[in-house]
């Protein structure tokens, strides 16, 4: 049987259009051997959650630079749960003050990554924490 290949989605919720970081990460995930779905800018939490379910990803990475992460990240987790997809692990990144980390963890995010963290460390974190979904 073939090895399960990790599928990951990179998404940008809200009105922030600064997607360089998201694209760098998408490229980095491709090079790590993951099938990476990128959905582009200006997405609502509903659209992102629905897409993540249709694509059956193991992990959803949200990116936000505008400061709206306090609303958008927890809202996306909520929409995923409404779709019965609480097995999709959500991580987030962008311009996020350390004071907000706990709020995001409490909302259900598994990891938060901010400027200064090396790409290799993000991939290492994923290798250690994200297991490809194998249930029916």
């Amino acid at each position, binding site marked *: *049987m*073939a*090895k*399960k*290949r990790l*599928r990951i989605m990179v998404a940008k919720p809200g009105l922030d259009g600064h997607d360089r970081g998201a694209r760098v990460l*998408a*490229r980095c*995930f*491709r*090079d*790590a*051997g*993951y*099938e*990476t*779905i*990128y*959905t*582009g800018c200006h*997405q*609502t939490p*509903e*659209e992102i959650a*629905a*897409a993540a*379910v*249709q*694509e*059956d990803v193991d992990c959803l990475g949200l990116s936000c630079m505008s400061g709206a992460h306090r609303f958008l990240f927890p809202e996306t987790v909520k929409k995923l749960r409404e*779709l*019965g*997809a609480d097995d999709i692990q959500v991580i987030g990144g962008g311009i996020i003050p350390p004071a907000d980390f706990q709020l995001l963890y409490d909302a259900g995010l598994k990891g938060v990554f901010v400027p200064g963290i090396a790409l290799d460390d993000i991939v290492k974190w994923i290798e250690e924490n994200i297991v490809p*979904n*194998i*249930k*029916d």
Partner: protein
Amino acid sequence: MEITKKVLEGNVRTVSRLIRNLEDGVPEARDTLKKIFHHTGKAHVIGFTGSPGAGKSTLIDAMITEVRKTGKTVGVLLVDPSSPFTGGAILGDRIRMQRHSTDPGVFVRSLATRGALGGLSKAVGNAIHILDAMGKDYVIVETVGTGQQEVEIINHSHTVIVVAIPGMGDEIQAIKAGILEIADIFVINKADRDGAGKLYQELMYMLNMADGFPGGWRPPIIKTENMFDTDSFRKSLIELVDTIDQHYKNLVDNNLLGNRIRRKATLELTEALHSAILDPVLTKLVESGEMTQMADKVLNKTADPYTLAEEIAKKYLREL
């Protein structure tokens, strides 16, 4: 049994996971496929192919909008290439059609080629069956950006649409022998650009040289223009959807649909035989270590691969 029922009811989670398991070669997924197979054959399967950046994803997005106005449902499979080095992929076609993602009448799934060379991925054929069984009226398949001979899409679609754009100069010459032969409908996208008239003439010239067409269907050429000029873009999309429906009707009226389905059936049988006969033998050879021993022999030139293969065939398939 439960999974089959959920697929037929159109459960999105079940369907997306099943496609995933088929891609990954999970044996249980194949058992589910056996049960689903009898519920397939209702959807109209439409393939979009053409060079990278021709506008396939954008056209599909606009087509979904038009089709949804009639109340019909759509399943979409988008194929992008896997990296030959890492096996990773960027699946980015979805960006163009994200606005449909919360519409329950639309299901969009991206697939990586995983080494397949025909412009599709190996799992596409089965994924089409699944979207068909979940009740989608149309199943749209977008190939990777194609060059000359990624023509695998004809084995899976009832209607093949080749999207061409002006300004590619000599490439038209180059693709004459491959991709252009498989079109049921041509779309000249970005037709507001210089060279659209010339491209139209080239295609007409090519079609004029053909010795008749099956069912009398001469592939129409539809021009689609700047999508920001919404009125004329929409009009051309309505024309495209009408033409797609007419093509399907033409296949049915002339008893040609069977030929298309037979192509797919033959291919699927070949693949199924491959996994029923060859795969178990390969697995045994690898697990018993025989494969390594044989590779060593070939390496040391103490045996040749042809004799070894014949011996294996005799051992495992005594009837042959």
